Structures are given as C-alpha cells and as structure tokens.
C-alpha cells in the first residue's frame, strides 16, 4: 500500500467568502466523501486550509540557519488555490484515482492533484 496526498484545488472565486471570520461550512459532498473513504479504511488524515490570503511563505536564504525571509501570501499565484488535502492509502495509482474522482472539487470547477507521499525516515 502507498500513501497519496490528494490536493484539493478550488477556483479562487468560489473558495471562500469575502469575510474569512465567517465560519466556513463544508461544501456539498465532502462529508459524504469523508464517510465513504473512512469506512473503507483509506482515510489517513486531511484538513481544509485557510484561504491563500491568510498564507505566509517562508524562505531561508544563505543555506540552513540563514536569514529567514517571510513573505505575505501564497507561494504560487494561480487561478485555482489549494483548499485542502486528504491523505489516502491505496494499492496503486489506479486505486488512488478512484478515490480522488469522488472528491467534489474534481467535478465542480476545481481539480484534485495526487502526489505520492514520501514516508518520513524514522
């Protein structure tokens, strides 16, 4: 079995309300997907992310321990923004694709990117 991060990209305009202080309600279909994927034992984690406006990007210049450069905003400016992720366990890419195709963003204007997770050395 392998771990995949299913990165959920959403159209920026639909991603968040203008008032981030409002409590965000999960969009249609996500609870249903969560129920299905956890019942199958393939759910290994995942969260929704605050909008890119809330993001902070960190770079360290001059090698490890060097100057920490903190910039406001996301790393990549794009029409679609990373809205959240699921960690999914699957036997292979085809199985992971079956799960990813059930995440609502995949058919409602967004996209789901599958990235194999590299296990941490313990």
């Amino acid at each position, binding site marked *: 079995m392998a771990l995949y991060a299913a990165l959920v990209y959403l159209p920026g305009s639909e991603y968040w309300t203008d008032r981030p202080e409002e409590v965000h309600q999960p969009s249609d279909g996500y609870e249903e997907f969560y129920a299905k994927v956890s019942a199958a034992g393939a759910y290994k984690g995942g969260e929704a992310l605050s909008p890119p406006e809330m993001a902070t990007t960190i770079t360290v210049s001059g090698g490890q321990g060097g100057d920490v450069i903190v910039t406001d905003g996301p790393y990549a400016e794009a029409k679609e923004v990373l809205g959240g992720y699921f960690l999914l366990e699957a036997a*292979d*890419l085809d199985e992971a694709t079956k799960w990813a195709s059930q995440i609502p963003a995949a058919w409602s204007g967004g996209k789901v990117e599958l990235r*194999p997770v590299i296990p941490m050395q313990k």
Partner: protein
Amino acid sequence: MTDPSQELAETIRVAGASVLATLTRTFGSLQLAEDAVQEAALAALRTWPVNGVPNDPRAWLLVTARNKAYDILRREAVRPAKEAFASDQPKLGPDTAQEALSMLEPDSAVRDDMLRLIFTCCHPALAPEARVALSLRTLAGLDVEAIARAFGVPEQTMAKRLVRARQKIATARIPYKVPADAELPERLPAVLSVVYLIATEAHSPSSGDVVTRIDYEREAIRLARLLCELMPGEPEILGLLALLLFSFARRPARTSSPGGEPVLLRDQDRSKWDHAMITEASSLLGEAVRRSSSVAGPYQLQAHLSACHSTAPSWAGTDWARIVALYELLVKVTAGAAVLLNRAIALGEAEGAGAMLTALDGIAGLERSHLWHAARADALGRLGRGEEAAAALRTAIDLAPTAPERRLLARRMAQ
C-alpha cells in the same frame, strides 16, 4: 533484412521486449528489468555470432537477464541506501540455468506480461510524448539514440525523459496490470494512440544512416498485430491494424524512385500497391464491423476512409460521396483541424472547387499549415483565380517543414 547481423539484432530486440515484460513482473521494477535486459542483449551480441543462435533465443535471454538482474541487485546492495530495497527482493538462489528455466511460463503467461507492460507504458498518468518514447524503448526494444533521432531531440534529453517516466511509474505506483473490462473503454484509446503515433509521427530523418534506420511503420504494425493477438475481437484494435496496413500497402508507390520524392495519392501508380495486404486489411475491417456493437470509433472510421481509396480503381473513380460522409462521422468523434482539412479536400472532389474553398476558409487555426495553403492553392487554381493560387502556393512552400515537401510544392508552382 538480408544482413545477418541486423537479423540477429532484430531477434534480440523482439525477444528482449517479452523478457523485459516478464522480469518487470517478477522483480517489480521496470528500471531494473530494463538494465538487466540491456546487459543480456549485449552478452547475446557478443556470444551468438561465435557460438550460434540458441534454439530458444527468448529462454536464453530470460535466463541471462535474470542473472544480470541479481548481479545488479547484489551490486546495489553494497550501497547502504539500497539495502532495504534489496532485502525485499527474492532470495538469491544458485544461478543454475535449470532453476532459471523454471521461470519460463507457458505462452499465455508471456502474453499477459506483454499486455501488462503495454498498459503500464501507455498509462494516462504519463505525458503523451513520454508514453510514445517509453513504448518505443520497452515494447519495441529500440535504443535511446534511435528514439532521440525519431523525436529530433538530443540523446541526453531523451534519456532524461525516459528516466523521468520510469521514476513516475515507480513513485506514483502506476500499476503493472491490465485494466478491468469496465475500465478498458477509457484505457484502450491511450494505447491505440501510442501505436498510431509510432506509425505517423516518428520519422527518421531522410539523411539517416540506412543500416540503423528504424522502420517505425513496421514497428507500429507489429505492435498492432500483437494487440490483436492479446485482445482478440476488439473492434478498434482491428480498425487500427487495418488502417496501418492500408497505408503500408501503398508504400511502394508513395515515393518516387529514384529520388525518393513524396508522390500524392492522386498521382500514385496503383498497380504498385500491395494488393494482398489490402485484402488482409479489408477482411480485418470487416471483422471490426461485425464485432462493433455501437458507433464505429475513430480508427475504424479512418480505416473505412483508407479502404475507399485502396479499393478505388483511380483517383477520379473514387466514391467521394462516401468519403465525405465518413469524414462527417469522423468529425463527430475526433475534433481536429486535420480531419476538417481532409473533409474539405474530399468535398472538392465530390462537389467541386467552390464547395472546397468555402469549407477550407471555414477552418480556423491552420494558418501555419502548409497543407492548408496548398489545398487552398488547388481550389483557387481550379476556380481560375491564378494569382491568388500562386500566392497561396508560395506561402505553402515557405511553411513546408521538409525539403522533399518543398520540392513537391515547387514542382506544382512550375506547372
């Protein structure tokens, strides 16, 4: 294929692909399997000319490649980072040929391995150009240098592209399996398009060294035949093989001799066509039609188009109304300016130059295509608009990508 050394290389290449498929399954790594098969192929090239070709070349290559694979694993196990990987591998036994021979499966298992390898190399998670390159490397057994030449890129670039494709297969776990029946309609088109691209897109430069030049059309036909054998009765596979054969049958007439200039279909000497091959293609297409449950797919439709030409007594005696009707169907299943261009040319024969010009001018996005300008020149010429025709032909000559095509157009200019 009279040169014995070339025949030997061909045997190694074809048998090597099926050995690669089997080793990929037993070792679970395409990269390792490829390295092992390459070393085995080099050993065969060294020893077979001296000791003679073994009775069962595939068995020889399988045994040798398997031992090479274990050698590679042993070498890599020395490096600490690879220890975990190597310990996952089957235990190393005594390297007796007898033991290795027990790996030899019946033909059905070999076929399954090949089919798995085909679907892995043509997986939609790989970029289309990576699928074609990887298929040429693993399924056709061509070396990186030959593939790089076919794509017109430096060898290093092609080597990197292949490494990246194999890395993606390993890291993303692109499965080494044949898709379930329910998924086949989604997965088969990617496989068929790779075979089609090998036939149509991979061209050796005309100045290439004759001895090492690879016949991509022949490779594509070999792969299409293999697919027909592995998945019997699939209408689109039958359609694709028929299409490739119709086209290949015209080969003796497609270029002038001497000179090797391209000859347009309308000017080809039809007695030079391979009529036995046309008969075979027709019967394959007939089988495809019988087995189709619903609408014909794009390769079947293109095969029908090709059949119309291949069975017509002459350019003028071609059933142009049927060809236009087939293009109408093809436009519905494959969007693409090239299909519209061919439909317009057929319309020129079925209804006249006026209809052709209207259709041509209705196609967007072909302003950089020499074929579009050449077709416009043809229509304008037939309508008696000589100056406009000459201008269109000049543009076509400027845009033509190869010297033979430029010369062909220049000859038309002179007429």
